[in-house]
């Protein structure tokens, strides 16, 4: 009886050993190990990025609406979108909003990064506090801005009026043009710290020797920036701009809270309009088609900028 048990244990052990060896051998193979390590990431990407994207693509080719699976309609939803004047306006608005918000974020972010790169008292506290707009949830900060721009109770109007600067209230959100610039302002306020901190990190990798050498050669502050700082900071800048363009072009929360796309659809972005059609009106196919118009634009931006970065690397 005891001998039989011992033999059984031995068989069990050797089988276990063989299994462990196979696993060890497998993991020793670089390809297999790489695949194993990548698998969770790929699974998450497939589940949360690829699957919704493919579903959106499929939805955009069908007449699906809430509670009705619909049928295949080819490119009809895309054609309808192209003929939709509200969408045309939303597309133009999105380009305008992205362009100006990115320009301001880059210019002000760079300026702030250069200032923060200097030595001054309470440097760390100020650097940390600068991130506040970026840390506060967008919905909350957008609500605060909405109150500041309120047509009746705007604190800014109150201050300007009582300061004798204006005699009538400024139409922050009640004029289409004003509302769009207000949205650009809030986006800039929210996104600038990201630019500043990232560019600051880039600035700190630039050796002070280069600036000293340029200064010894007689270069002024502007020339040192343009011929030393800017070229060395360009790769970081391009990456930040790519991220910013992607986030701003697909922005939703800020406009949804601040203006709801109004007045008279003047501030609708592609994302807010797609939401209104797809989720609000239940026209899921049309909403998906509208949102997919963002894809080629963003893909082109990313491709051009990454290609430029690659060329710089090989140069």
């Amino acid at each position, binding site marked *: 009886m005891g001998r039989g048990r011992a033999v059984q244990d031995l068989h069990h052990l050797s089988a276990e050993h063989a299994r462990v060896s196979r696993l060890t051998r497998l993991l020793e193979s670089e390809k297999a190990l790489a695949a194993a390590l990548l698998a969770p990431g790929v699974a998450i990407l497939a589940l949360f990025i690829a699957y919704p994207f493919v579903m959106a693509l499929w939805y955009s080719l069908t007449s699906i609406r809430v509670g009705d699976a619909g049928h295949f309609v080819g490119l009809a939803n895309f054609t309808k979108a192209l003929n939709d004047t509200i969408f045309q306006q939303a597309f133009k608005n999105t380009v305008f909003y992205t362009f100006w918000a990115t320009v301001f974020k880059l210019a002000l972010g760079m300026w702030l990064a250069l200032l923060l790169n200097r030595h001054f008292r309470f440097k760390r506290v100020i650097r940390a506090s600068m991130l506040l707009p970026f840390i506060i949830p967008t919905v909350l900060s957008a609500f605060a801005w909405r109150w500041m721009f309120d*047509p009746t109770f705007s604190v800014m109007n109150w201050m300007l009026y009582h300061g004798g600067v204006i005699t009538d209230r400024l139409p922050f959100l009640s004029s289409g043009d004003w509302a769009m610039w207000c949205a650009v302002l809030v986006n800039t306020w929210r996104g600038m710290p990201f630019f500043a901190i990232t560019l600051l990190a880039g600035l700190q990798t630039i050796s002070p020797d280069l600036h000293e050498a340029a200064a010894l050669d007689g270069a002024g502050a502007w020339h040192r920036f343009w011929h030393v700082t800017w070229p060395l900071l360009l790769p970081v800048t391009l990456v930040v701009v790519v991220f910013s363009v992607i986030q701003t072009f697909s922005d939703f929360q800020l406009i949804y809270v601040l203006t709801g796309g109004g007045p*008279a*659809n003047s501030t609708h972005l592609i994302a807010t309009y797609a939401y209104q059609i797809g989720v609000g009106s239940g026209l899921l196919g049309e909403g998906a088609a509208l949102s997919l118009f963002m894809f080629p634009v963003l893909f082109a931006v990313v491709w051009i900028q990454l290609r430029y970065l690659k060329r710089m690397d090989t140069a």
Partner: protein
Amino acid sequence: MARFTRRKFLQASSAGLAGILASHRAPVFAQANTVHLLRWNDFVPAADKVLREVFAPEVQKALGITLNLETINANDLPARATAAIQSGSGPDIILLLNNYPHLYASAGVDVGALADEVGKAQGGIYPPAARLNRVGGKWVSMPWSLVPALIAYRKSWFDEVGAKSFPKTWQEYHAVGKKLKAAKRPIGQTLGNTFGDAPTFTYPLLWSFGGQEVDAKGKVMLNSKGTLASVKFMTQFWKDACDEGGLAWDDSNNNRSFLSGDISATLNGASIYVAALNAPDKFKTDKGEPLHTDIQHSPLPAGPNGSHNYHTAHNHMVMKYSKNQKGAIEFLRWAHRKENLEKWLVVQKGYAVGTARNWEKHPMWNDVGPSLAPFKVAAAGQSRLMGHAGEPNQKAAEAWNKYIITVMYAQACSGKMSAEESVKWAAGELSKIYTT
């Protein structure tokens, strides 16, 4: 004392999970008779309090139903409904405004028996409310209440500019509004992208000038002389008489502006009056009197084609995906009983009224005072719905949700387009909806 190790915990919880999965049944606590009701944040907060503090314990006692009330911003209700229907899970009952039951018709359980029962017991459901909830002859949702929209105005301020009674026509209202704006007391009206106060103003304005979205067969008729006249009128009225910040208002801005004394009149439910009534020390007139004593209500003025009003309908849809359809219908049946529904309607003080005729005779109307008296019969007087002269169907819901009629006025008032261009634009947008 035996130690409860991590290993034991994992073994126990795995066994429990395996048991649940093998039984194909939810655990006992989730099978209880719970009804999840999704509604808006009521403009009369006391009404939500009644649902939480009176309805919930009483329905628990009467039927053993646990009422789980969730309230959200009204503008977000369609998004929640869409997400719930597509995912096949969510609240058992969802509050749907106006013509949304037509948009979500396939997701609603037939509540015809309940509607018949309530209609018979309470003097008949108003025909417009029935049209909003019946799709293809089937009751896909249950009418709950109507929120009459009337103009709340400051009686003393109107008196001061010579308007001893509320203007009967749009032209008279324009003339009075011009004087009020000159006295820094403009009329407040939202023309923003918002669900309630904007369409309840713009649709009746369109109708009162003879405009209409479509004919009875659904052919778009918007580009007409009547529509153009209404847009031209509104453009001038806006400039002369209104607070032009209204282009950016949502449904709550006019309440705040009125209560703070920034505007003299606005189209609204009774919520402004109710708020002033509930806080007489907070909201006062320039003479220090309680503000509610200076608030009167009136239907919208008449145009060449008469006077029209639109009152926001609130409907409850029992969702097909619900695992507790029976409980949800039982809850609604219990809630619609006179002795229960009146507890909710009484605190509304006319902001929301019943959808059946007998509620006009309720004793509460003897106590509300003359200012709220017009709310008693306002809902009964409604004849037109969005999508007029066609059906209040999916197309009408889409047009409402895209704010096309409201934007038509907003574009002209903001100077973004001429009246002619804006009418043409709106007719084109409607055609795209009605021809697909």
